[in-house]
């Protein structure tokens, strides 16, 4: 995707270039089915990552399994595999390993290519063709191992068992979804996507699995999203809990409290799935970029930024996950209280905002709101008995919460515009202000929220979608509408009781999903095409929370 010539690829498709494609997920699973139809017949390709059984057998650490089956007529299939590890910075020549298939070895990592399609080397690529009649199946297993002897998964009926086990596992998992309202299929698809974006070993959820898919074609808006943003924490936890995935929510919270120990009591904007804090940005100048959109970046310098809203995100997540579940353990209580102390010291300082604006620091209204949410959440935990705060601390948090609220209401609301503004004493809006009605700072039906909603739509709305802000952020290119902002608007509408409008907008937003029900971070306003890294956890979190808000408003 990032370089058609130098980047790697794995294609398994009809050799005849004139074919039509139709694809879908096997219902309530993450197993993908793709039907290819040519003049001579049709085939079905099944793609999955077999579920690991938790070390109970010798399955590979990670495997991508592809099965292709003739459906009608005969179709000549071509398999082409070009492995380019380390962002295509290494050259690699596959080694034939007799009946074990082929191995691609670099450093202490190995990719074993095992297939019942005869392959041969063509340059550094492996290629093979086979003609499939109706009912005939072939398999391709790509098994990756790092640091250990590889495990080579068998094909044939054993591959079929792995496919069946994986479908059964996903059906069991999606069967536990407790959301029963409208648009259930879309909510389940979003929950499955969040699960796919979760690093099982730590519980961390990455923003997206890709880097440098451009937010504006041909411009510099290409970022690495393979990290965990604390910004997403509160709403993600809320979405997981609302759909009944408490274990995943607690696991995510556990990762957050663990990962943030390295920088506590200060928090960093983002961490990697292992909790590492140095995420220095580099440009891969040898790659052409998606649709010639350079540069391709790995790492993300946004980790150096200062965002005050993240304290509120972590505390909000803890409040949601721990609501009604007794007392916090001593270490977690100490950590959360420490976040409150930081907020008391820093809430009146400037930051980069939830949108990670690269440029001078400003006093963003939403950052203040989340500082308020930090202290409000801690005081609620104290009131519920989950957290015991000393009296002096209760007084301090209460006093600072009131001071923040006063600043927001006096300087974050522009009476002339009748709207909250992006920065204190400002005259512009940004879509994060909609969250004030979602997180409980203000009732979505409050006159100030209603008028803010209206101004945001007037200034940021295009084609039923919302841009995130109206300010030029110093980076070339015009970005698309932000998917999650559209869902925040729906959340506001539902919470203030405008159900018809909420559902109408929700259906409109659904029309921008791709054929599999997936969203990127942004949507091109003119064409409706996906922009940015894909699929994007935050957008799917927004979809779930908006659907839940609609359902709750209905009942």
């Amino acid at each position, binding site marked *: 995707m990032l370089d058609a010539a130098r980047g790697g690829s794995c294609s398994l498709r009809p050799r005849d270039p004139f074919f039509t494609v139709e694809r879908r997920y096997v219902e309530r699973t993450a197993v993908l089915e793709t039907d290819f139809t040519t003049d001579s017949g049709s085939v079905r390709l099944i793609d999955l990552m077999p579920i690991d059984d938790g*070390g*109970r057998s010798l399955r590979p650490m990670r495997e991508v399994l592809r099965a292709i089956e003739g459906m009608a007529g005969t179709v000549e299939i071509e398999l082409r595999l070009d492995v380019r590890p380390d962002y295509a910075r290494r050259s690699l020549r596959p080694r034939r390993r007799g*009946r*074990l298939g082929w191995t691609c070895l670099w450093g*202490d990592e190995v990719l074993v290519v095992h297939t019942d399609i005869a392959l041969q080397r063509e340059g550094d690529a492996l290629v093979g063709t086979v003609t499939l009649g109706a009912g005939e199946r072939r398999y391709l297993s790509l098994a990756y191992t790092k640091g250990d*002897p590889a495990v*080579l998964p*068998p094909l044939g009926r054993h591959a079929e068992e792995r496919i069946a086990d994986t479908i059964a596992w996903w059906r069991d998992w999606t069967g536990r979804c407790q959301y029963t309202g409208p648009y259930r299929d879309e909510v389940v698809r979003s929950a499955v996507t969040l699960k796919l974006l979760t690093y099982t070993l730590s519980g961390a959820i990455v923003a997206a699995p890709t880097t440098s898919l451009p937010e504006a074609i041909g411009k510099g808006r290409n970022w690495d999203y393979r990290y965990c943003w604390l910004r997403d924490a509160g709403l993600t936890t809320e979405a997981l809990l609302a759909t009944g995935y408490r274990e995943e929510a607690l696991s995510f919270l556990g990762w957050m409290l663990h990962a943030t120990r390295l920088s506590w009591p200060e928090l960093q904007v983002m961490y990697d799935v292992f909790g590492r804090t140095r995420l220095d940005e580099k440009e891969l100048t040898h790659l052409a970029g998606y649709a010639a959109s350079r540069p391709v970046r790995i790492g993300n310098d946004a980790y150096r930024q200062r965002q005050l809203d993240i304290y509120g995100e972590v505390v909000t997540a803890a409040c949601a996950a721990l609501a009604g579940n007794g007392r916090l353990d001593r270490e977690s209580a100490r950590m959360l209280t420490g976040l409150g102390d930081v907020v008391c010291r820093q809430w009146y300082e400037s930051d980069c905002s939830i949108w990670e604006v690269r440029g001078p620091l400003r006093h963003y209204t939403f950052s203040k709101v989340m500082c308020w949410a930090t202290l409000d959440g801690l005081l609620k935990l104290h009131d519920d008995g989950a957290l015991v705060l000393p009296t002096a601390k209760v007084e301090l948090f209460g006093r600072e919460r009131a001071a923040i609220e006063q600043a927001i209401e006096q300087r974050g609301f522009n009476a002339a515009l009748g709207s909250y503004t992006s920065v204190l004493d400002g005259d512009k809006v940004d879509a994060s202000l909609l969250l004030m009605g979602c997180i409980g700072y203000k009732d979505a039906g409050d006159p100030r929220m209603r008028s803010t909603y209206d101004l945001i739509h007037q200034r940021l709305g295009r084609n039923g979608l919302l841009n995130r802000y109206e300010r030029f952020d110093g980076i070339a290119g015009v970005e698309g509408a932000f998917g999650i902002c559209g869902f925040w608007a729906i959340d506001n509408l539902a919470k203030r009781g405008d159900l018809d409008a909420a559902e109408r907008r929700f259906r409109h937003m659904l029309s921008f999903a791709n054929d599999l029900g997936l969203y990127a971070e942004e949507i091109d306003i003119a064409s409706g095409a996906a922009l940015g890294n894909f699929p994007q956890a935050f957008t799917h979190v927004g979809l779930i929370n908006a659907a839940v808000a609609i359902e709750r408003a209905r009942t």
Partner: protein
Amino acid sequence: MNLAYAALWGLLATVAMTMVLRASQGFGWSRLSLPLLVGTFFTSQRDRAVVWGYLLYAIGGWLFAFVYFLLFDSVGIHTWWFGALAGLVHGVFLLVSVLPLLPFIHPRMASEYHGVTAERQLEPPGFMAVNYGYGTPLTTLAAQTVYGAVLGAFVQLAN
């Protein structure tokens, strides 16, 4: 030679060798995991195989120390460098003879001749164990050399 001390040094030599092998894995120089290969002789459960493998491998290394002591006495050389040399030869033997034979005796190891089956799925080491990374011969030789050197140093001190 005091038997208890010999047992203690046998254990220390095994620990040193295991540390070198584990460090090689940790630093990404090799994917060879002798404990995993040993453990999977007895169970197909990866997590249990690693635990049992470490235990059996440690016991094996410990007992093998007495073969080294026998060797030192038989030739009458009790020095660290002779121990290191013995370890090096031991390592070469392991790499060129023992590990390549594993697919024929290991119940869960696949082979390039017979392919993969439901029972045999572990990647075979190949000649000099290079299938587990091109650094594997060197790290294996280093580990065996350290093992022999520690034992040789002990007998040198003890005599």
